[in-house]
């Protein structure tokens, strides 16, 4: 392992990316404490693996990848993950005529219910800075898979966050132990 990044460079990295990294961590983990730990750990990992960052312009996706790996490691070691059946969800979530205000806590609950493989592309998608291709690279998935997961994830959010339309009736989401 090479030398850690210099103080000036690492502090600039923090200044440039701590907001988006913390938000990502929060949306992934659903907890402020976990988000701060993950952000801290991601920056520490970046500092100690500084030599791997060849192009400073790629710092953001690099940091996001580090953080996601840390999060995956964490949930694997904790052996808990919410599993939700999302099959056909895109077909059942109707869009209401008017968009009601979205409650932050409810949104986080809805995100937390999603498996990480659906949650991550959704969060990255709504962060605006990541194209579908960036998300696919970040997750090492084919572009089509990312799009399909995004569609299902968005349908799940609609179903969870928007009031059901009178016609047709929206079935509620259901949990399963078997995953997707």
């Amino acid at each position, binding site marked *: 392992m090479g030398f*850690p990044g210099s*103080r000036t460079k*690492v*502090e600039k990295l*923090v*200044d440039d990316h*701590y*907001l988006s990294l*913390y*938000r990502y961590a*929060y*949306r992934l983990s659903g907890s*402020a404490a976990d*988000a*701060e730990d993950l*952000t*801290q750990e991601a*920056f*520490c990992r970046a*500092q*100690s693996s500084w030599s791997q960052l060849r192009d400073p312009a790629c710092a953001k996706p690099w940091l996001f990848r580090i953080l996601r790996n840390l999060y995956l490691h964490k949930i694997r070691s904790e052996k808990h993950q919410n599993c939700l059946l999302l099959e056909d969800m895109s077909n059942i979530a109707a*869009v*209401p*005529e*008017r*968009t009601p*205000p*979205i409650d*932050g806590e409810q*949104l986080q609950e809805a*995100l937390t219910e999603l498996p990480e493989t659906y949650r991550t592309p*959704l*969060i990255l998608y*709504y*962060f*605006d800075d990541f*194209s*579908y291709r960036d998300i696919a690279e970040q997750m090492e998935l084919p572009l089509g898979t990312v*799009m399909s997961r995004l*569609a299902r994830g*968005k349908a799940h*959010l*609609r179903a969870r*966050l*928007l009031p059901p339309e009178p016609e047709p009736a929206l079935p509620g989401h259901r949990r399963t132990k078997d995953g997707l």
Partner: protein
Amino acid sequence: MDCKTARLLLELDRPGEGELGKEGKEALEAHLQECHRCRRAAEAERPLDSGLGRAVRAVAIPAELPARLKAQLGAERKSWYRRYLLRRGRDGAVAAAVILLALLGRSHWAYAHRPVLDIEGICVDQSAFQDQGPQQIEREFADMLHVKAFLSGNFNYAFLFTCSVEELNAQRVPRLLFKSGSNIAEVLVLSDDQFNLAQSMEKPRFGSGNLTIELRPHPQDPKIAYLIIYSGDSIDWLFLSKPPDAA
């Protein structure tokens, strides 16, 4: 564009050119202008999507977060350098111990393999070259003392007492000790390969106490010279042309 494609593109659409590109975006907008149902769907979908986006990004940032992050990173960096120095120190100590052991081993080996003196090979006494000429004595040097000696025929070898090998200025040179009565002459055979004879020859004879030192050239070979250290006033007895009185 048909409605099915438009709905799919609506799903992929994002603010700006996004993923659809300029042409895709224009085609979608053209369809939305024409199709009332798709336009209504878009009018519902887009605010919802941007509302979700705002909500996803609306995460409260803890106070002093960057300061805490930087402080922790500083502590990590210091800890890394401390570990690095310890590791280097440990590696250095291991390397020093290995070198020390190697030196001790070498020293022990050298002590255990100290050379045994070859007393017979140190010098050859006069009995070995009684009545012998320079060629035979040169052979004795080569066979018994393992050095080449180019000897002059002018020396009176009847006075030769011993032959040996001497170290002179870190060079091994043949040494002949001549003795006649109370006169002694030590002759060191020097070669031009070992010493700069031309310059050495320019130096004058040197006397110290009862001893005199002089350098004489080989009568025929300029690449050979003899350093002669002798007692008494004259060295004529050493050469055949003037046999010594004492002999």
